[in-house]
């Protein structure tokens, strides 16, 4: 019994340095957010708006009415999924910046397959579209992934370029061969049967039963990344690929699978947009959804739990920003600026705290040395 007690004390002491880091990090995050809000307030003042009124409008616009809250939750879902997609690949050491293109292709595939299966039972339509989205997103991520893993071609640049290619391609398809015959739809594919549409959970909002798919995926990704053996191996691959290989881990395969699954998740996001919101593929299906999710992931250092929390906060900023534009009049882009300030500060957090610590340590050292000198003379 005594040894058990001693063991738990030892365990507590062993955890302390890690906990200290987390507390410091969260504190920095809080400071970053406050700083960013101050900057935003400054910009608002400069343009002749009342910051308090603007921010109030923002929070009210995101959380006030059930409909707004539903939209915020829906946005949280999108950010969370894209953020986790980025984090999963990043954990294995590969940066998937091409999620936007994978999202588009996934949505296109889901819409096309879903529409083709019109007339079959609902679950077949849904399953078929889901599989198509996963395959499309995964395959499109596989390409830059294999280029990086086998040929060492920089995946950041290839995925960004392939983004543009995919978006243009989808636009071409939606305006050309796959264009719907329905009148009134500018550039889109055929609609999927109404029975397959997701049901909204909150009236008039974007929140649909699609959120349950998202929750399942989130849980799965969180588990894989933090509690699974594969996640352990991915962490080793991501932190030192050569070491992972030396230790017998199939680093190549892990990195590639990380990338493919990341793309698959993005494809699913496209699927959710089609089945939940637009019911067909439109060229306006996404407006930088993936980039927003990427930001969340980068700020929270690719930690799944942090990504989930931060998605909610960013969703508030996002939805609230648009609401703010409608009620207070200031352009919603100011929230983008606020977001980027948070990122800058959080990215610099490590370096700034190092500098602060070094200065404090140097000052302490000089003080002690001077004290020692004085004592020696006495």
């Amino acid at each position, binding site marked *: 019994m005594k040894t058990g007690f001693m063991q738990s004390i030892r365990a507590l002491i062993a955890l302390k340095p890690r906990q200290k880091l987390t507390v410091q990090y969260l504190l920095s995050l809080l400071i970053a957010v406050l700083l960013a809000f101050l900057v935003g307030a400054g*910009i608002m003042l400069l*343009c002749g708006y009342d910051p308090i009124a603007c921010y109030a409008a923002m929070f009210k616009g995101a959380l006030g009415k059930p409909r707004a809250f539903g939209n915020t939750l829906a946005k949280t879902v999108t950010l969370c999924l894209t953020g986790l997609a980025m984090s999963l690949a990043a954990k294995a050491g590969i*940066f998937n*910046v091409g999620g936007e293109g994978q999202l588009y292709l996934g949505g296109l595939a889901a819409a096309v397959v879903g529409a083709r299966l019109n007339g079959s039972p609902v679950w077949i339509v849904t399953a078929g579209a889901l599989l198509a989205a996963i395959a499309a997103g995964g395959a499109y991520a596989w390409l830059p992934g294999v*280029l990086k893993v086998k*040929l*060492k*071609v*920089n995946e*950041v*640049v*290839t995925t*960004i*370029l*392939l*983004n*543009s*290619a995919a978006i*243009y*391609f989808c*636009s*071409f398809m939606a*305006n*050309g061969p796959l264009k719907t015959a329905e009148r009134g739809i500018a550039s889109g594919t055929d609609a999927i049967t109404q029975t397959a549409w997701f049901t909204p959970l909150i009236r008039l909002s974007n929140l649909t039963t699609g959120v349950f798919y998202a929750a399942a995926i989130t849980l799965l990704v969180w588990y894989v990344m933090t509690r699974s053996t594969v996640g352990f191996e991915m962490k080793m691959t991501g932190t030192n690929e050569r070491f992972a290989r030396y230790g017998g881990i199939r680093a190549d395969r892990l990195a590639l699978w990380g990338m493919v699954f990341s793309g698959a998740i993005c494809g699913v996001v496209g699927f959710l947009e089609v089945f939940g919101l637009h019911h067909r593929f439109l060229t306006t299906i996404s407006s930088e959804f993936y*980039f927003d999710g*990427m*930001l969340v992931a*980068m700020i929270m250092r690719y930690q799944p739990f942090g990504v989930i929390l931060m998605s909610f906060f960013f969703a508030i900023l996002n939805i609230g920003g648009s609401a703010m534009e409608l009620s207070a009049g*200031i*352009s919603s*882009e*100011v*929230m*983008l*600026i606020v*977001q*980027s300030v948070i*990122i*800058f500060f959080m*990215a*610099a957090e*490590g*370096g*700034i705290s*190092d*500098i602060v610590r070094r200065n404090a340590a140097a000052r302490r050292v000089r003080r002690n040395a001077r004290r020692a000198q004085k004592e020696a003379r006495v």
Partner: protein
Amino acid sequence: MSDVFNLLLFQNTLRTATPVVLCALGCLMTDQVGIMNIGVDGMMLMGAFFAVLGSYLFGSWVMGLLFATVLGVLLGLFYYVFSITFKSDEFIIGVALNILAGGLTVFLLRTLFGVKGSFSSPGIVPLPTIHIPWLERIPLLGPILSGNTLLVYVSWVLVAVCWAFLYKTPLGFHLRASGEAPEALRASGKSPERMKRLASVLCGVLASISGAHLSLGYLTMFSENMSASRGYVAVACVIFGGSNPPRVFLAALLFGFIDALGMRLQKYIPSEITSMAPYVVTVVMMVAVVVLRQRRQAARERAGRALDGR
């Protein structure tokens, strides 16, 4: 065929390649000191906006360029402070910079000019078109080489200047040393950080000015997302050209050619496909470089085996 492969095609090549050339030269500078600046796309976008702003407010393209230059210096310093002094991840800072650029330019567009989408006005003074008489007289190439706007010629000069600077001046040697072996430079009494700061500032200025060419070069307008990922293409060109100014210039020209060709072919091929082409080609280029390098390696292997008499 002749309405595709004509003078206009090559003129457009130069015009489209120039922003990529300028931006790539900037990226090349930071690459030489060991930094990969992904944020050049955002710098290009902001440069485009501020150039229009300057030109509009003062009715002069000189002021437009000046605005872009000053912005470039500030952006370069900003990037340096965050990625070197604060040791942030270059990739995060770069992407965040691009997002800031998008948000800021749209915000300013709506707040300052009160428009959405794009801003155009007769009050904006474009960059001057320069006709060089003796250049014009060259058969075939004459009309292509002469009659371009200012920054096209500036970009040519800068390619030569960059090359000479990097390989023929002591400061250029210091710059390259700070990327390849910073401790060696430090031991000889020079500060690698100062070199990185210089490279950052140069990159910011070049990227900004490349944006000025976009908005004041031939069109006189600013539209949202004007850079259209050209900053990333510039990065790809630097990788493709191995940070060597003349090679990077050729890579950018190739991109410009494909882009211009795409525009000419829009009559026959859907516009999305032609817009897609440059990006796909750039990816193929990057892969080709790597594959070629590996083939060269394999050939050396075979030679090595021959040397050992096996």
